[in-house]
């Protein structure tokens, strides 16, 4: 191939005569679900939604979401609605009915550790299966990855990130840091403008999800109406109830190959109740951290009781002590004497 750094010029002849036949950038709205039928189905045809659904494999994602994510009912409902819309759109396209590609830029609001990043990952996978995204990967960034340090630095930085995310989901954590109300010359504004432009013009190529705490996100959208209006779905992640936290904990314990002794079960619930009332509580992430710390204490406990044989059950079982050692039970929150 003539790609050795010395491009070759073929002088006229030889080369086929046909000249440029550049097509318009692909504007197909249909998904991979047989959306782009060359010939529309006749008006009296019927389509089989159940099969389309099965072929797409979305049920795997939706079921996994149902089983592996505790609570989050409003979020799950919204995701099912979006899946249904895309599925029906693909079938409509077979009859030549096109309402245009729906915009799926979203905002996820909620407290820390309520599952925003986790759901975004699943969303990316789902949108790929539905043919809405080509690749379905997730690129998670914060202000630092988007905004530069000096004049002329921001635009290439933001574009770089946008290009990396194309074909998938761009997840912007704590998006409100992009906007600084007190400084109108902040480079964040430039980044927002590029984002807006690409969210509008490259809608076929990526989905942008802005995430953050509810109140600050609301302020951000008020100050940036252009951003707010480009976001079709505002999804709020409610915090978890104690029962849900417990369920999440049990799920994590099970996934890690552990179990709780009956007494440890009670202690664990007690722990979660206390922890959730304390500062810097990060919902499911705090639960995960508690489980991680219990693993450490469990391991030390087994190592220290040297001599005694250790059974498989011992290796799997948390005891109350694995949680009781926590600061939560001792430190001076006052109302909670150590058990």
């Amino acid at each position, binding site marked *: 191939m003539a790609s050795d750094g010395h491009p*070759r*010029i*073929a002088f006229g002849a030889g080369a*086929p005569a046909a000249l440029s036949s550049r*097509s318009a950038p692909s504007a197909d709205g249909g998904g991979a679900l047989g959306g782009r039928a060359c010939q529309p189905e006749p008006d009296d045809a019927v389509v089989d939604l159940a099969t389309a659904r099965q072929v797409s494999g979305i049920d795997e994602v939706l079921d996994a979401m149902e089983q592996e994510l505790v609570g989050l009912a409003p979020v799950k409902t919204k995701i099912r609605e979006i899946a249904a819309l895309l599925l029906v759109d693909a079938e409509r396209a077979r009859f030549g009915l096109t309402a245009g590609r729906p915009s799926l830029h979203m905002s996820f609001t909620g407290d820390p550790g309520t599952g925003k990043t986790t759901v975004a990952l699943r969303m990316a996978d789902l949108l790929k299966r539905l043919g809405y995204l080509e690749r379905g990967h997730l690129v998670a960034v914060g202000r630092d990855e988007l905004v530069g340090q000096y004049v002329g630095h921001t635009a290439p930085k933001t574009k770089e990130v946008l*290009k*990396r995310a*194309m074909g998938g989901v761009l997840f912007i954590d704590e998006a409100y840091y992009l906007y600084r109300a007190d400084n109108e010359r902040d480079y964040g504004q430039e980044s927002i403008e590029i984002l807006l432009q690409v969210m509008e013009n*490259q809608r076929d190529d990526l989905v942008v999800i802005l995430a953050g705490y509810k109140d600050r996100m609301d302020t951000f959208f008020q100050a940036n109406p252009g951003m707010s209006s480009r976001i079709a779905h505002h999804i709020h992640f409610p915090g978890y109830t104690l029962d849900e936290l417990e369920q999440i904990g049990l799920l994590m314990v099970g996934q890690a190959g552990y179990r709780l002794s009956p007494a440890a079960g009670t202690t664990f619930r007690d722990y979660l109740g206390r922890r959730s009332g304390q500062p810097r509580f990060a919902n499911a992430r705090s639960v995960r951290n508690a489980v991680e710390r219990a693993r450490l204490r469990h391991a030390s406990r087994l190592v220290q009781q040297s001599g005694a044989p250790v059974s498989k059950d011992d290796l799997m079982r948390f005891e109350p002590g694995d949680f009781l050692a926590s600061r939560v039970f001792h430190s001076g929150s006052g109302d909670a004497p150590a058990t």
Partner: protein
Amino acid sequence: MRITQGTFSYLPDLSDDEIKAQIQRALGQGWPLSVEFTDDPHPRNTYWDMWGLPMFDLHDAAAVLYEVNECRRAYPRHYIRVNAYDAARGRQTVALSFIVNRPPDEPGFRLDRQETADRRVRYTTHSYATERPAGARYQEAR
């Protein structure tokens, strides 16, 4: 005269869908890509201007096509090419290079013969486009 060079020089110009498919294939091989442009298409001009830096860590061809379109917008009447690099051998090797944009009118080349001592002849490929200063080539016909 239609200039051809690079990997698909024997083919008619690729459509955007075909360009996208080639880019996706390159990405699939793990090759970074770059976009370059020039208004001096002389065969020995290997150093075209870079449209931004080579692009790493991309997943989807849309990102490269986005830059191609940005470049087309800025230089609608220039030659633009897409290169893909394969670093598998430990050095940056061009694996794929093809033209994705060209001026509507290409005046072509003239062969100059210079007679020197002992009836020897030196040949020069002269590009008509370069008779105008850089930046003013391939303008609308006046």
